[in-house]
């Protein structure tokens, strides 16, 4: 007699498999829906402004004029300030945790990072607007926003850099030390070349986060219209900050313009994230010798 392994249970089994696949596919569905719906809702403003949406600098909802260039600039500028502050600190932190600190010291560092990552962005924003902006004459400006964003992206850059750095083969490091290298020379000769690719990816992921961060930037950036300046202490505006600050009193066309900003932001962050994820994954695979 043959054992029947395909009774009614087989249907339940298959149903479970398909529902699991559907749940996994939900990621693709949601991403696709985001792209379709927000692009669709932004068409009125593109019909009105055309390419000038990206090339003109006058943003005046009352006159139905929407030139987003200053906000694109503001987003890029604050993100660059944030990176300039966060990258050296994160790399220093990651190197300290992996190359210098004994395990006893490393644990509290991990907690420190978790704590920093756990503070909600709106709380950083509150601190930024009521405390930080009152100090050193910072005011509400690109610089204040850059500092707050830097604090917020340090945990992600640090933790990814740590993961990448930890894949350095111990043999490389020991070899460098055996040849008489000091610790710093060992880091330059063995650790950095090995993890350079992954570090670039980690920094790019930080860049993506900095550009998309809304609430903290909206609170401290100063909401100035039409500013394209390289003066870091001038008040400015960024794409997500404009969306958050103007949504409440926007009419239909204005809303469509704000959604168009979101589309721009979505495309930029998706491209940055695609690049970064690819780079990190590739370097991790290389490190594991696959």
């Amino acid at each position, binding site marked *: 007699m043959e054992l029947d392994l395909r009774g009614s*249970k087989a249907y339940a*089994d298959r149903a*479970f*498999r398909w529902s*699991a*696949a559907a*749940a*996994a*596919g*939900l*990621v*693709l569905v*949601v*991403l696709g829906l*985001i792209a379709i*719906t*927000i692009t*669709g*809702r932004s068409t009125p403003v593109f019909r009105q402004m055309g390419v000038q949406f990206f090339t003109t600098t006058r943003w005046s909802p009352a006159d139905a004029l929407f030139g987003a260039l200053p906000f694109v600039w503001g987003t890029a500028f604050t993100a660059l300030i944030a990176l300039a502050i966060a990258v050296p600190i994160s790399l*220093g932190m990651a*190197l*300290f945790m992996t190359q*210098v600190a004994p395990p006893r010291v490393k644990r509290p*560092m991990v907690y*420190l*990072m978790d*704590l920093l990552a756990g*503070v*909600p962005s*709106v*709380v950083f*924003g*509150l*601190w930024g*607007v*009521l405390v930080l902006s009152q100090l050193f004459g910072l005011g509400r400006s690109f610089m204040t926003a850059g500092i707050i964003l830097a*604090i917020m992206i340090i945990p992600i850059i640090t933790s990814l850099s740590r993961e990448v750095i930890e894949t350095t083969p111990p043999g490389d490091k020991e070899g460098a030390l055996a040849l008489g290298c*000091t*610790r*710093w*020379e060992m880091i330059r000769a063995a650790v950095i070349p090995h993890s350079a690719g992954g570090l670039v990816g980690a920094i790019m*992921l930080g860049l*993506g*986060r900095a550009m*998309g961060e*809304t*609430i903290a930037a*909206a*609170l401290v950036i100063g909401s100035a219209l039409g500013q394209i300046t390289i003066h870091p202490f001038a008040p400015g505006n960024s794409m*997500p900050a404009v*969306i958050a600050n103007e949504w409440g009193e926007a009419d239909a066309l204005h809303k469509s313009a*704000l*959604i168009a900003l*979101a589309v721009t*932001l*979505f495309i930029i*962050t998706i491209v*940055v994230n695609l690049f970064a*994820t690819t780079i990190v*994954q590739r370097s991790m695979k290389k490190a594991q010798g696959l």
Partner: protein
Amino acid sequence: MQLAQQEQAAVAPPDLSAKQSWRSVKSLIMTGLMVASVAAVALPLVAVVSAVLRRGLAVVAHDFPGFFVNEIPNIARRPGGGMGPAVLGTLMVTGAATLIAVPLGVLGAVYLHEYGVKNHFSRLVRFMSTVMSGVPSIVMGLFIYIVWTLHFGYSAFGGSLALACLMLPVVIGSTEQMLKLVPHHLREASYALGSSKSRTILTVVLPAALPGIVSGSLLAVARAAGETAPLLFAVGAANEYNPHLFEEANTALSVQIFGNATSSFVAAQDRAWGAALTLVLVTFLVTLAARVFTARIARKR
């Protein structure tokens, strides 16, 4: 005796320290910079936490525990009042988001790890889920505004949908990591007893990975509880208690902080600090719960 001293001098290694000095000083400077970067991270954290504690405690202690339950004054400059509706709103929005995102995320991760480890579909999903975790939360908020709020109006549930979208990739990622840790022989033992694959997953694999899944999900919850941007579009702005998940505008702690932070009235700023302390306490409690669960797995192994 003299001879012995001479011998010792001859055997002693050549002194290289003078030549090395610049190199070792450089290494020392670099190590010093690394330590300095630790300070650069700790300083703002201490500043933020101490500001929230100091100014938040002053507000909360002034009316304890009334601050957590009283209604929010409709006139910003009026002192007093509390954050009761916002506490309830945060719990409702985050709770419903958890109920949506965690089952779906766990199920998705089960597919990625138990069914389609290496096929193209799961590779694509894994990659896109990493990409999705980088989508700015404000974009997620506008997406929910278009597909939900435009049709059904403001409600706490709209906010839950937005937060669920943000949590989904995080839950998928952390759950898959935990499923990887379940030893293979557990699955094989279950198959050998004649269990089907779905039964094995439900009764053997998931229970084994449960503490890790719970702690990963709790971290995602803590993250979501602090989100503000998506709620601006989907939840609306109310100052009264609204216990209905699907009806009428609601509020949340993060939204109240955002609204009150830029107010020029001291009373409103005080409420913002009080709400910030409450929010930090909520996220801290959730994170602590996650830590306890993680510690429990660590002890088991």
